[in-house]
């Protein structure tokens, strides 16, 4: 698995964006500096070209001939690197030029006023001024006014140095700022992630003995952490609930299994304690067999519960056919009739035609049987049990099993579906149950997406209501 770190990613993003920013800044900085310096340079060149034009004079003789007064040549822009210039008359006569003027320099006749060229490994910026007027003309001169062509060029050495310096300045500052930003980001991320680390440390404290999650104080103030804290808290609550339930179940199951084993063991041990009469042995063995059968029954119920709960968790997948709920009720009533007759109880089944449902008929019969068994077991002798089966208008299939027994006290009502719960706390064989019937019924009903609930008023009896969503898909 590829590991990644939020911190590394965030730092990466910060560095990348800072680097892009620095590059952009460097580029625009250099560009802007160069433009500014060039325009200053151009102005200086223009001024010098004009000064040169001013040095071109007409001869005194009135012939209109020109001469160049080389006593007043303006100084180079960069004293360390002399500028180049040349002045031509209208007739392309080279009137004057600087001492270092390169003969044979090609001057482009097209394009703007400025151009660049390289001479003797030095980059130059040139200015061409065509048809510059000779400024010396006075009022009354009869000759035709002449124009000049002036070329002025200056090496770009100083400018390049300045641009380079500006570039370095920007670059160094960018690097410094980048470093500072990374440090700041690291600090900020560390600080920002601190509540997360505290939360993780707190979460590590959670164990099966200590379910309390104490989120760090700031965790609740941080919008990003709040949903995490909330979902962790609810998840822990759910886990704790099911863990406690599981533990209770294990304790109860251990008790329920160990007691019959203890009975069996003590019966056999006390039989062996001393020689007994054959009647005593016979009786002991009969008792042992009874206890063994009860143990076997308990195991069967526990396996049924395990299977029902596995079903509910979708571990078992079966191909389900559409069956009739009413028929399963009839079957369950038929199965319990023998036990009901023993207690002189009557079972009324009121039905309203077939109720189709996609289900395993064995499962549904199990549910109805468990409900009926409870009703028969806890109802008064000679009483009646009502079973209603039907489908609510456009709604779920509904089965109600009602008895007229002593009822269940309101405070015990929520517990009746818990595993090993018994309304009658005396666990003797007269009532016989293991307290698993309703838990199995609940698990099965929930496996089909249905609901089961109990309504009871003491003295009036208990109504068990099952609703199963009808689906034909």
């Amino acid at each position: 698995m590829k590991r990644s770190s939020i911190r590394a990613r965030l730092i990466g993003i910060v560095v990348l964006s800072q680097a892009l920013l620095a590059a952009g800044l460097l580029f625009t900085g250099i560009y802007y500096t160069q433009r500014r310096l060039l325009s200053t340079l151009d102005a200086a060149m223009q001024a010098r070209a004009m000064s040169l034009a001013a040095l071109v004079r007409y001869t005194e003789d009135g012939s209109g001939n020109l001469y160049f007064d080389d006593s007043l040549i303006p100084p180079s822009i960069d004293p360390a690197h002399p500028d180049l210039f040349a002045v031509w008359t209208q007739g392309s006569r080279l009137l004057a030029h600087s001492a270092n003027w390169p003969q044979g320099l090609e001057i482009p006749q097209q394009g703007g006023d400025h151009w660049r060229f390289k001479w003797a490994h030095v980059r130059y910026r040139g200015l061409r001024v065509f048809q510059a007027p000779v400024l010396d003309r006075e009022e009354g001169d009869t000759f035709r006014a002449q124009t000049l062509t002036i070329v002025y060029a200056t090496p770009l050495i100083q400018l390049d140095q300045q641009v380079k310096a500006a570039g370095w300045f920007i670059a160094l500052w960018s690097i410094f700022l980048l470093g500072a930003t990374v440090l700041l980001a690291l600090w900020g991320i560390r600080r920002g992630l601190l509540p997360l680390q505290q939360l993780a440390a707190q979460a590590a404290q959670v164990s099966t003995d200590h379910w309390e999650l104490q989120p760090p104080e700031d965790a609740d103030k941080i919008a990003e952490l709040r949903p995490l804290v909330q979902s962790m808290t609810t998840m822990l609550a759910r886990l704790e609930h099911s863990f406690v339930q599981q533990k209770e179940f294990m304790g109860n199951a251990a008790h329920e299994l160990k007691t019959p084993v203890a009975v069996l063991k003590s019966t056999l041990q006390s039989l062996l304690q001393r020689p007994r009469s054959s009647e005593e042995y016979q009786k002991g063995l009969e008792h042992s067999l009874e206890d063994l059968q009860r143990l076997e029954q308990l195991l069967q119920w526990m396996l049924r519960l395990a299977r029902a709960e596995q079903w509910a968790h979708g571990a078992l997948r079966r191909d389900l056919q559409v069956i009739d709920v009413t028929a399963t009720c009839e079957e369950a009533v038929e199965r319990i009739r023998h036990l009901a007759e023993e207690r002189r109880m009557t079972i009324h089944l009121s039905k309203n035609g077939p109720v189709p449902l996609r289900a395993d008929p064995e499962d549904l019969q199990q549910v109805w049987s468990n409900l009926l068994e409870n009703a028969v077991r806890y109802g008064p002798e000679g009483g009646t049990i009502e079973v209603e089966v039907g489908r609510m208008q456009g709604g779920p299939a509904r089965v109600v099993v009602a008895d007229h027994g002593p009822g269940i006290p309101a405070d015990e009502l929520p517990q009746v579906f818990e595993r090993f719960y018994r309304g009658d706390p005396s666990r003797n064989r007269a009532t016989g149950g293991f307290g698993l019937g309703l838990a199995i019924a609940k698990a099965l009903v929930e496996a089909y997406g249905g609901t089961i609930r109990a309504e009871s008023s003491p003295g009036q009896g208990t109504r068990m209501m099952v609703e199963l969503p009808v689906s034909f898909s």
Partner: protein
Amino acid sequence: MRVLIIEDEPRLAENIARSLRESAGYAVDIANDGQEGLFLAESNEYDAILLDLMLPHMDGLELLRRIRKTGQHTPVLVVTAREEKESVVALLNAGADDYVTKPFDLGELLARTKALIRRGKGQPSPVLSIGDLELNTVTRSVYRGGRAVTLTAMEYRVLEYLLHRPRAVISKTELLEHLYDYNWEKFSNVIEVYISGLRRKLDDGSAKQLIHTIRGQGYVLQD
């Protein structure tokens, strides 16, 4: 010795009772739920109580606390299906003296009960003695000056009880209460018979009389 068993599984209670009666010669009462158990424990003198934890009507732990609240020192041996540490700790803290977990061994339960009764009466050794009289509670044999004495079951039980509390005046009622189960009143006249039988067998050939009668109060075992 008289023992109370509080256990809601009747067959288990009966098996333990039978074993205690047959192997230790104890008188045994049985209560099948917590309320009955509390009533019996409060209204009778027991030498030990065997208590199941999961009981109808009243939880075993609650019952234990109530018994201890009344100031009863009767040793209590808890029989439990739970083995978790916390429930064992809760048991001992509530005043239980010992516990066995289901399914237990009857022999072990018996030995633990005997040991609890001995310790409850300040007699840690399984061999009880006074002067040259010796009684082994494990082999249930009695010697006087190295000579084996053969006793009937009831004579043995009377002597065992007297030996657990030597030099103390023990009334006839106390003897009856500790030697018989709840029917003890029916037997009120038989104690004299056992005492005289014991005197005859123990003091036979010895210069010193061990069992003394204190008129109007009861009996004392003294050398």
